[in-house]
């Protein structure tokens, strides 16, 4: 059960402030190359090498000179990767040699856009190799780029500016889908706008109504699949592309916001934020049927299929899942399972995976700071350590008082996981931390708790890093930051009172709202 499905939009939209620089990274295979560092095993000096091989290895990161905030990622059959950047607009990458991606075009921004922040969140593209093939991108409109717009680029013509720009002003637009001469734009509570695609213009010819919060869409075999974040999946017939006719719909939990279709299996996979990943039988479009749901660890934002032969069902799906990327085993869509997970290495320790694309065994992970290329090895299996809290804040403690907190560890891999040691580093003098037990074995799917004890030696903030040494081949030393007695307000403190103006009018004061538990969600709109 997920209790806060509507928190997803916050998680997808609000992490947009710091400019993070990413450490160079590599897999063991690339260790030794310039600019590439091996996993930080040195933090676990007594640790033996893992007997396992990582089933999903990060190979490289697309080099950029600044952070790029990748959002939707799309691939073409001939090895191009297109990704939207919330900062830079559309980027086109040649990944015909996946381990050595090269940006060949972009950033491409709509002419309506602020040149510093052309912005783009979603893509719909014509994958044919025709040089005039168009890729359309959308900008939803926000504080930084107030005009919502759709822009179309001849993405195979390097350096070509957009051919079509359509200003939506103060309206809003999210996901896009291209049909036969028509563009379908999910417009949240306006439904889906239908555009006729001309040589240099988009002409709005209609609207699909009856939706609560149209978030994204895709076209497959003459059918339009729309995900409604306030309902589920709705399927339309495109025999008359200007006037899609609803065939069927199925409610789905969470906040459905991305859909892709495995035509060979007649199954639609829907990323539904905190609702996880849904599989829907679409073999009878007039009566789509829910098959199963994978409760992903984070928030499922985009799903791409690891499919090279479109006549055969995809064996795996790649999922952008907020703090991690996932490979999901699709052998039984009604019983999807995590095959491997990846928390790419970023300097602050908090990866934010917002988009993902797939091309067979290669995947392109759109993380906040860059585009990472990872290779899947289906024959391998390994343990996979997931630590729930990368920053663990202890309850407040008086001097000499001992307080405890639970550090939750899970094995989301497919082999038993062995934690062999726990190493504390970078300890400050204001307190002592202890973590135990220092060794632990977890079966696949099992979770357990490490107890963290904190003894304050004075009233200043105490910090330490703990490294969990395990046989997870991907992350043999997993770092968690510990904080005791933070000088700011923290766990156990009374929150400071404040007041604010509600958007609906009137004043809201915290002290007047107490009496029941409350969640304060701070956000900005950019």
């Amino acid at each position, binding site marked *: 059960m997920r209790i806060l499905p509507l928190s997803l939009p*916050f998680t997808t939209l609000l992490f947009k402030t710091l400019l993070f620089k990413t450490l160079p990274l590599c897999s063991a295979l690339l260790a030794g190359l310039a600019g590439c560092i091996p996993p930080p095993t040195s933090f676990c000096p007594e640790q033996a090498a893992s007997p396992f091989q990582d089933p999903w290895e990060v190979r490289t990161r697309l080099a950029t000179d600044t952070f790029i905030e990748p959002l939707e990622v799309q691939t073409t059959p001939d090895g191009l990767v297109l990704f939207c950047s919330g900062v830079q607009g559309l980027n086109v990458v040649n990944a015909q040699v996946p381990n050595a991606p090269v940006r060949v075009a972009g950033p491409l921004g709509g002419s309506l856009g602020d040149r510093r922040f052309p912005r783009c969140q979603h893509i719909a593209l014509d994958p044919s190799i025709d040089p005039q093939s168009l890729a359309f991108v959308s900008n939803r409109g926000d504080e930084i780029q107030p005009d919502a717009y759709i822009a179309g680029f001849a993405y195979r013509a390097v350096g070509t500016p957009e051919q079509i720009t359509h200003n939506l002003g103060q309206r809003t637009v999210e996901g896009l889908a291209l049909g036969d001469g028509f563009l379908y734009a999910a417009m949240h509570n306006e439904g889906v706008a239908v555009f006729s695609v001309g040589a240099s213009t988009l002409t709005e010819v209609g609207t699909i109504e009856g939706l609560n919060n149209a978030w994204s869409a895709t076209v497959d075999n003459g059918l339009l699949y729309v995900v409604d974040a306030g309902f589920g999946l709705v399927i339309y017939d495109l025999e008359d592309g200007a006037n899609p006719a609803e065939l069927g719909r199925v409610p789905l939990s969470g906040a459905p916001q991305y859909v892709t279709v495995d035509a060979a299996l007649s199954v639609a996979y829907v990323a539904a934020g905190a609702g996880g990943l849904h599989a829907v039988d679409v073999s009878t479009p007039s009566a789509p049927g829910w098959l199963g749901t994978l409760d992903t660890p984070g928030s499922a934002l985009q799903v791409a299929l690891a499919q090279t032969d479109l006549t055969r069902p995809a064996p795996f799906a790649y999922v952008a899942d907020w703090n991690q990327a996932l490979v999901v085993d699709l052998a039984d869509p009604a019983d999807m399972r995590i095959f491997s997970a990846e928390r790419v290495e970023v300097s602050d320790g908090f990866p934010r995976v917002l988009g993902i694309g797939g091309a067979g065994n290669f995947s392109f992970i759109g993380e906040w700071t860059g585009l990472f290329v990872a290779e899947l090895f289906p024959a391998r299996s390994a343990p996979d350590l997931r630590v729930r809290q990368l920053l663990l804040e202890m309850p407040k403690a008086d001097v000499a008082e001992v307080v405890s907190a639970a550090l939750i560890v899970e094995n989301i891999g497919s082999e038993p996981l062995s934690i062999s040691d726990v190493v504390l580093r970078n300890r400050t003098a204001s307190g002592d931390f202890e973590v135990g037990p220092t060794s632990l074995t977890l079966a696949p799917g099992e979770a357990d708790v490490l107890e963290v004890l904190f003894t304050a030696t004075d009233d200043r903030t105490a910090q330490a890093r703990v490294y969990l040494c395990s046989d997870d081949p991907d992350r043999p030393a997993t770092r968690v930051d510990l904080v005791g007695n933070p000088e700011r307000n923290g766990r156990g403190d009374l929150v400071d009172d404040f007041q604010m103006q509600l958007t609906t009018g009137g004043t809201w004061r915290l002290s007047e709202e107490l009496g029941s538990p409350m969640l304060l969600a701070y956000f900005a*709109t950019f």
Partner: protein
Amino acid sequence: MVGINTGGLRGDDDLASVERFIDQTGITFPVGLDFSGSHAQYRGGPRISPFPIDVLVDAEGRIRLLSYNYDADEMEAAVEALLPPLENTDGGTAP
């Protein structure tokens, strides 16, 4: 649950942009604009991003979870720990 807009990247979030954001996301809980800097009380320390910050407080206003990096499982566990157990129709307690 209450959403607290803090003024944005350049400090120029205004009522119109916040209302647009509410429409885009479909959120239904109350949202307010607070440019007084109340979020500064949670800032400082390692790995701390300014947004989003989720603060779970109990009935007395004591902080029970301070989350700088939304984790669905962590939030779910913290909220459930604060809520009274659900009662089954037969008078028992839900698992």
